[in-house]
């Protein structure tokens, strides 16, 4: 069964926030840089806690950053 897709605009937001690096964002939200890379590529659906942390860093709400795309037809 294919997984539901969660896309985001983290990469765009990083550049809008003073070209923040992936490493810096990873440090601020308390995860590895690899997790940020996978998150940006849409290959990792984060927990609610991590999504809130990312939203806090960019001073946005979760739905401003993450978009849910269901695979159900």
């Amino acid at each position, binding site marked *: *069964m*294919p*997984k539901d897709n969660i896309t985001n605009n983290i990469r765009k937001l990083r550049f809008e926030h003073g070209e923040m690096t992936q490493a810096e964002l990873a440090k601020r939200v308390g*995860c*590895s840089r*690899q997790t940020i*890379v996978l998150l940006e590529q849409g*290959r990792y*659906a984060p927990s609610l806690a*991590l999504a809130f942390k990312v939203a806090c860093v960019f001073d946005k709400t979760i739905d401003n950053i993450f978009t849910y795309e269901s695979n159900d037809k």
Partner: protein
Amino acid sequence: MICSRTLVERSISMEQSFSWIIVALAVPLVGMLVVGAVFIKKLRESSVPLTAEERKERSSVPLSLLQKVSLAGLVLGIAECDALYIIFRTKGGAAEYWENDSMRLLVVAIFIGTLVVQSFLIALASRTADEREQRAIKAAPQFQVVGIIIGLALWQLYLGQKFHDAGTVPIVYNYLTFGTIFILYMLSWFTGVLCSNRFGRLDA
């Protein structure tokens, strides 16, 4: 008459033993095939091929602490296997291990020393892992089960063949079986973490 009867009994017990070994080997092999098929099926369903840009980006990211620690544990475990293999080849086999105190001390020292370092690495990995990596750690026991089954199947075959005629297995092999299975248990943990982290879909 007695001699011919003994030969017949022996040939019957040999046939029984062989069929038992085949059954014993077939069960873990079927289990491994099922686990492998399910794993590959899940991987195919969940993975979308990486684009060239994504591949480039992923390869440019340095290893995380969990990956470094797991790699270190794996390399240490392989080095331990090599060292033990060399010791058993050069100083004598299992019988010598049982008789020779200095050889036994050396083997036990390598085993315990590696175990302590690997335990430290596992504790470090577990404490520093983020939420995605914690899922990779939780997936590692699946690899350990496969590792243990393979190890036990190989030991069973080896001991069954080697001591078939004797009818009994020397007690030293109890210790050697435990030691090697424990080494496999640790090695497959590190392998499992690395593979899950690299290939697994670890969504929250």
